[in-house]
């Protein structure tokens, strides 16, 4: 029997070695595999190269990994955000390297790694400083820049639901980089809201076939869902929108 499920996030991230290249899914917070990142922080691997669209938000998730000094280099399209203070500090202090990649080149380079493409001529970035030093070519009257695949040792991604073969479905725009990162890493590790029995995911709707998935861990339903139905009640960061006051302590 094929069973890619593991018992907890610690088991899911075991073996990630110092110096590894790790893709981390998510666009901002949507689809960010927070439990896996927390487990990676706990696990202790350092000197990492991280591939993500961003470079961390606030003080949790990817930002927390950066804050611990575990990351040598970030490959991303949009590090600077209103809440990217952790990355900003490290970058200004010269404590982290940045490879800035236009978002479409980032996505296509990740896909290329998964699809066995050696390199491709991209329309994006031509004539800009992000194409400096790269090979240019005119094809059918238009200029293109040669871009190479980005592959990884590990991908940490988040999906809505999986079966034990690792077939995945996602939810809304939390899908983002998950499906392509899953194809581009030697070992793909997925956190999901829930595991379902084999055959419960309609084969027409599978977004990531299990062939791309190595380990799956269920981390429980997100707080804005109840039994798979959206119930809201949170802000954009997933915190309770109207926090309930803790009841005053009563002296006994």
């Amino acid at each position, binding site marked *: 029997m094929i069973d890619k499920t593991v018992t907890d996030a610690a088991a899911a991230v075991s073996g990630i070695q110092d110096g590894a290249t790790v893709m981390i899914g998510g666009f*901002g917070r949507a689809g960010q595999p927070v439990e896996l990142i927390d487990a990676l922080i706990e696990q202790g691997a350092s000197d990492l190269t991280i591939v993500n669209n961003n470079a961390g938000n606030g003080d949790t998730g990817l930002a927390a990994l950066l804050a611990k000094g575990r990351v040598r280099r970030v490959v991303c399209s949009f590090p600077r955000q209103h809440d990217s203070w952790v990355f900003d500090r490290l970058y200004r202090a010269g404590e982290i390297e940045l490879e800035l990649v236009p978002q479409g080149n980032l996505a296509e380079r990740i896909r290329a790694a998964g699809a066995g493409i050696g390199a491709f001529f991209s329309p994006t970035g031509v004539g800009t400083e992000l194409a400096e030093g790269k090979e240019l070519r005119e094809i059918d009257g238009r200029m293109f820049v040669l871009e190479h695949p980005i592959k990884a040792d590990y991908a940490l991604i988040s999906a809505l639901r999986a079966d034990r073969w690792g077939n995945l479905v996602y939810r809304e725009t939390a*899908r983002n980089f998950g499906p392509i990162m899953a194809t581009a890493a030697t070992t793909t590790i997925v956190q999901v809201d829930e595991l379902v029995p084999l055959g419960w995911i309609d084969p027409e709707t599978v977004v990531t076939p299990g062939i791309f998935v190595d380990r799956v861990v269920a981390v429980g339903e997100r707080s804005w869902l109840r039994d798979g139905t959206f119930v809201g009640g949170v802000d954009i960061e997933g915190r309770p929108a109207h926090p309930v006051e803790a009841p005053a302590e009563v002296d006994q």
Partner: protein
Amino acid sequence: MSSRISRDALAARIAADIPEGSYVNLGIGAPTLVANYLPDDLEIILHTENGLLGMGSAPESGSIDPDLINAGKQPVTALAGAAYFHHADSFAMMRGGHLDVCVLGAFQVSQSGDLANWSTGAPGAIPAVGGAMDLAIGAKEVFVMTDLLTKAGESKLVAACTYPLTGVGCVTRVYTDHAVFDVVDGRFVVREAFGDNTVASLAELTGLELASMADAAASVEGT
């Protein structure tokens, strides 16, 4: 008459130029205002680079869904008829030329249609490009929405960009608070001047030789 229109009026002006049935990306920041002025009775389909076609307006308070956001990472909704897809598919959609219109902000636009909108090149600034370069080269029509002048009074329309480029020869039209300009054959054509602006006054503000629509028409006839 005033010489400038408000940002909201400009958003409305852009919205009026987008035909029904268009597939449109409104980038992040000010251009997203255009969505507020798209007529409710016309079907115009919004794309957001993070994997959604058929993006709707912001959710009601209490219905924020952290899994459903736009490129600016703000909560949005999805219309009936929407579709989700992953990032490579989303950017293939842009880069393959399938979007009809995108609307972007700008630091500078050159008269040959070069766009600079991602970096001022200031020393020590943290660079971030996101999807700007893909949008700039991908859509059939690349509209820029911007003030004509910087806060310091310098023209954002220039002979040649001095800021780092986002894309080369990609802008087709510039909507500013003073006027609307088409980029045609290496020069700006004043398509519409707001208030008491004229081709001459705009030429003075920008320091550029500008063409009127009549000039442009004559030029076409003359070819």
